């Protein structure tokens, strides 16, 4: 419990630091900082209201306190271009990014773990000679380029999958959950998730293989063989369980990193997620939205880093249970 609280405190500190950094970034850039928050398209009443709300005419430290206070209340400000609360826009995009990231990671890790474990046994074979360079190549390739290839081949070329978006334009759903589980959504999800999975699988594959190889040399595996245990028991119950520790941690870390890294995939596939919101907000100088999107993405990253830490401690009895004589 102490450990959980400690990590939580640490995560909150990092979040605070990042929020403050964002504050400074957007206000200390050259030029008139108020322009970052007020667009000419706003009516005069709106401008006055915003000036007050953000305290843009007040000294910097007062602005900072106002900013932090609003953040804590979930008030990320109002989008210039869409003229509605930033938080609403972000919460619409969040499920799409979450669906994409989680599904891609699950597929990537399921494949990577199994393939990696298999490769640990296939040492010195032709399969290994092909698989390892292939995995390295997927890690070296820009994900958006992989997406482009798949798009050109499977969507434009063979016409199997839709080329953009998460739903057919104009479709209506009874609830968010209904939309996320609809066949339409899932069909749109296939290409982007596949691309992301293709890019991501290299890590769990190589990691699982490396850890398996190490573990298979450990003394307790030799002992398991001497006990006459079946191959299955040795690999699954003993080797894999040990080898999965770092892979599970990597999964949690990957979740956090992919949230932000999805930016390019979402652009290639016009996937309406947080990344795309950030990019279009930045391109359109919609700074409150850009700021909000950045903070939300960072928040997920910091949260998952903490989860990864705790996960490792929980899974490894050597860490979670101290030594006692």
């Amino acid at each position, binding site marked *: 419990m102490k450990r959980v609280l400690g990590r939580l405190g*640490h995560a909150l*500190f*990092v*979040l605070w*630091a*990042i929020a403050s*950094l964002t504050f400074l*970034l*957007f206000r200390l*850039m*050259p030029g008139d900082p108020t322009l970052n928050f007020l667009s000419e398209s706003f009516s005069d009443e709106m401008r006055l209201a915003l000036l007050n709300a953000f305290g843009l005419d007040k000294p910097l430290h007062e602005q900072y306190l106002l900013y932090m206070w609003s953040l804590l209340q979930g008030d990320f400000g109002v989008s210039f271009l869409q003229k509605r609360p930033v938080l609403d826009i972000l919460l619409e995009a969040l499920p799409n990014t979450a669906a994409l990231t989680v599904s891609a990671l699950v597929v990537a890790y399921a494949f990577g773990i199994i393939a990696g474990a298999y490769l640990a046994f296939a040492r010195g074979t032709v399969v290994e000679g092909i698989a390892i360079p292939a995995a*390295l*190549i997927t*890690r*070296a*390739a*820009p994900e*958006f*380029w992989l997406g*482009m*290839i798949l*798009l*050109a081949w499977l*969507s*434009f*070329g063979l016409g199997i999958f839709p*080329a953009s978006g998460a739903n057919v334009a104009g479709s209506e759903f009874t609830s968010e959950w209904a939309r996320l589980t609809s066949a339409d959504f899932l069909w749109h999800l296939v290409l982007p998730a596949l691309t992301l999975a293709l890019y991501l699988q290299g890590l769990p594959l190589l990691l699982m293989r490396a850890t398996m190889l190490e573990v298979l040399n450990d003394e307790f595996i030799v002992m398991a063989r001497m006990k006459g245990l079946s191959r299955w028991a040795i690999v699954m119950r003993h080797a894999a369980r040990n080898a999965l520790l770092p892979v599970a941690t990597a999964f949690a870390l990957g979740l956090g*990193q992919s*949230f*932000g*890294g999805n*930016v*390019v995939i979402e*652009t*290639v596939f016009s996937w309406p997620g947080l*990344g795309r919101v*950030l*990019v279009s907000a*930045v*391109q359109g*100088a919609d700074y409150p939205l*850009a700021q909000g*999107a*950045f903070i939300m*993405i*960072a928040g997920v*990253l*910091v949260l998952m*880093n903490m989860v990864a830490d705790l996960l490792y401690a929980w899974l490894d009895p050597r860490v979670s249970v101290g030594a006692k004589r």
Partner: protein
Amino acid sequence: MQSASAVSGHPAKPGAVRRAWGFLRSQPFAFVGIAIYLLFALVAIFADQVATHDPRQILFSGTFRVARYLPPSMTHFLGTTAGGRDVFSQLVYGTRSALTVGVTAAFCVVVLGTLFGLLSGYLGGWVDRLVMRIADVVIGLPFLPFVLVISALTRPSTTTLVASVALLLWPNTARVIRSQVLSLRERGWVEAARVTGCSPTRIIFVHIAPQVAPLAALYGSIAVGWAILTEASASFLGFGDPSAISWGLMLQDAFNNQALSRGVWAWFIPPGLCIVLLVLAGFLISRGSEKLLFPKLGD
């Protein structure tokens, strides 16, 4: 036993060259990686000779028709873009920005990371805590989004790109170097240097730094790949330097001009392939060097 060189009167050939060659021959991975780097470096240096056209020049077929989307041919090895520019020449000149960005960014990452790792590991105390705290915050920053935001708030340029890559990637190197310094700090010869009155600066930079240099170089070779991928992503999204010629920009151009729906493979496959090769080269070198730097790590 007299060496042959002593007899002939010439100074002995340094063993380093022979050793390096022997190492390369025994490590096919590193060999291939270095060969790829060399190839790209040569193309970058001799771009003027290798390219067939001016990459920025809009070409015409006939008097008024822009030479758009031409398929690959003997004059245009990879065809032309939607704007009538030669793809192959763009590809060739793209090596320059890729290598500059990659190497510069990697260099900065290594220098920053090693510096902080050395200071943090050796000095300990509040310096260590401070550096590690900063590192934690930096690690909490989403990589690509941060690069985008910075590029947007300042004007997009190669310098801002390199700077943001360096600013975000140093923590990993720093942590690893710090670990190594922590263990080196306890060694006998460091203690001896302390006792004889060496200043901390001297100990850090003259005694310990050379020991961590191989590890730093290892991370450097991987950082090159990361920097190139980041530049490509940023350019693709429209946040790169628009006046430069880069593979990322080529891909953006292709994407925005229906290269996918038209199936103009010769336009968007090669730039991606070049990126893959260069990043892969970094991986291969680091994999190959592991054997040399950490011989105790069995395969």
